[in-house]
């Protein structure tokens, strides 16, 4: 009852010997994620915590351990190369947590990934979790609960807010994906919506967006035509001043495009229940599922 990651996931951690990479690799392992390899150039042959073999390259890690998903904690200057290294090694799903990657680097990554089988989540994202089965990323595991709501978001802590509201009200999650806050990224809202729509164990979705770009509008249009599952949404940034970058490099209203008002209108026009405030994301979905909204 999930998409993309589950009990069978074999994870490689790129940057496992760094402080963030090491800390979060341990947290993921404690949650039950099957971490089969780590990669740090120059540290091949070491063992991480006496359990996980470290390799110099993702290519070797893939050959030796059959890892099929990678998570990247490499610093920004080397992260784009890290993504392409995982893609080159044939890793099926690459999740890049790193924030602060120059956008021109991501432009080149995206162009080079065209036509490849690998999928990318992020960068600048909290990662992905299938509660009770597999946690890959920096989200706190305990706020989640296995269930049937799919959660998709551009923001980390706002996702935790939505997940916590769901869990507190007794609603579990099938999978939660943070797609990241950068202007050029891998998986879009729409890509994730399609996967959740095809997943028989996901019965509803919460879509969390923010100002900038038009990814939420594209997802809304597809949902209107193709999706029968209950969907609730929230868009952050209604009060953000135009032309200013609100923390996330992608969260900027430019030339009157990408406003919260425009996105909310598109979502509502697609029959999606839009939460008025971030405090009511779960309640808005629950009302919709119960046929009240």
């Amino acid at each position: 009852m999930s998409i993309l990651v589950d009990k069978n996931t074999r994870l490689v951690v790129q940057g496992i010997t760094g402080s963030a990479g090491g800390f979060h690799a341990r947290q993921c392992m404690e949650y039950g994620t099957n971490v089969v390899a780590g990669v740090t150039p120059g540290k091949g042959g070491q063992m991480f915590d006496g359990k996980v073999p470290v390799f110099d390259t993702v290519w070797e890690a893939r050959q030796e351990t059959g890892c099929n998903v990678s998570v990247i904690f490499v610093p920004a200057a080397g992260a784009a190369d890290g993504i392409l290294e995982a893609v080159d090694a044939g890793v099926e799903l690459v999740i890049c947590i790193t924030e602060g990657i120059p956008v021109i680097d991501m432009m080149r990554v995206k162009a080079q990934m065209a036509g490849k089988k690998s999928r990318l989540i992020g960068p600048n994202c909290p990662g992905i979790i299938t509660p009770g089965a597999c946690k890959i990323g920096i989200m706190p595991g305990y706020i989640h609960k296995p269930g049937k709501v799919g959660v998709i978001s551009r923001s980390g802590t706002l996702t935790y807010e939505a997940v916590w509201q769901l869990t507190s009200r007794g609603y579990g999650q099938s999978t939660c994906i943070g797609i990241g806050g950068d202007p050029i990224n891998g998986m879009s809202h729409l890509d994730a919506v399609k996967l959740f729509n095809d997943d028989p164990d996901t019965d509803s979705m919460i879509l969390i967006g923010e100002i900038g770009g038009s990814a939420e509008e594209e997802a809304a249009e597809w949902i209107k035509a193709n999706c029968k599952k209950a969907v609730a949404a929230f868009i952050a940034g209604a009060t953000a001043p135009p032309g200013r970058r609100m923390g996330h490099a992608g969260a900027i209203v430019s030339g009157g495009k990408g406003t919260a008002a425009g996105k909310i209108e598109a979502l509502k026009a697609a029959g999606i229940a839009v939460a008025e405030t971030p405090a009511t994301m779960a309640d808005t979905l629950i009302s919709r599922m119960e046929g009240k909204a």
Partner: protein
Amino acid sequence: MNIHEYQAKELLQKFGVATPRGKAASTPAEAEQAARELGTDNLVVKAQIHAGGRGKGTFANGFKGGVHLCKSPVEARDLAAKMLGQTLVTHQTGPAGRVVNKVLIAESAEIAREIYFAILLDRATAGPIVVASTEGGVEIETVAEKSPEKILREKIHPLAGFQAHQGRKLAKQLGFETSQLKAAAKLFDGLYRTFMACDCSMAEVNPLIVTPQGEVLALDAKFNFDDNALYRHPELAGLRDIAEEDPREVEASKHGLNYIGLDGNIACLVNGAGLAMATMDIIKFYGGSPANFLDVGGGATEEQVTEAFKILVSDAKVKAILVNIFGGIMKCDVIAQGIIDAVKAVKLPVPLVVRLEGTNVEAGKKLIAESGLPVITADDLGDAAQKVVAAAQGAK
């Protein structure tokens, strides 16, 4: 990051883009000297601030216009004296205006035609795109609104780059004469190379002019740089002018805090950009007005929290503060201790509402309860927003 017009022109010249000759000056004497060196009696004196609308702006001392034509070095000196050290208010600066610390003394070019030409990063195609128009010299947003059919868009392949034939086609579409084709294409190519080499998110020439003699020149230029890429451009980082920035934002960036000043009276301190924006939104929803955006990030230290508080309380408009933390990696007890230390250090002048959730939340709440500080606690985001709005109104 933004830079001044004179810096933008110097940058463009390095990439072979033709601009009118000119030099920046910090004193009236320098202005006179720069004008003499130009050796022409067609001069222009332009106030250098990071805001548009300079020509139609007014100085706080009553002097009108931040852009003036003149005929001699002595006139240039007198004009510079009226601008330097003075505050220029334009429709983009807000009522506070900006102090002019430099003027650009340049050869004034005669204009036969004005074109708009910009390169920016297009999210939809995940690559650079040229946006151009025959309607130069006005803001492109105005053109987009009034005559959208006059805006050209040309995609650039992210890996192959800007092609020579694209430059020739754009030149024709923008109405350049055959004799001007080469010069126009050279300017477009130079702008593209600047865009890529300097990690720009936008490079705009407006207006790009054609003189009566058929010369093609970049008359004014504006750049936005990708902050994430500044680490590999020390030469650009040196162009930053912190006098042009909000002092609160400058102070915050020194401590690794992501702060944007706004006009309201409720300060917020939040972890995570999305949650920080959403917190501003919910304050507004309940009738309040946020004083700032502040993301302390996922791994803030007690010291950073203290610095953040200092910045928040330094804003005289602030009537109440909301702390909204969803502890993931960040532990609530660490944040709570940071808040307690900060409140003791800065002697809180306004009501403080704290909402904590997530990792070690019970320990965090206990610390605050036992601290004896006058903190208003809230159980969830909605409760917190309503309490802080009420506190700000009560404090008025």
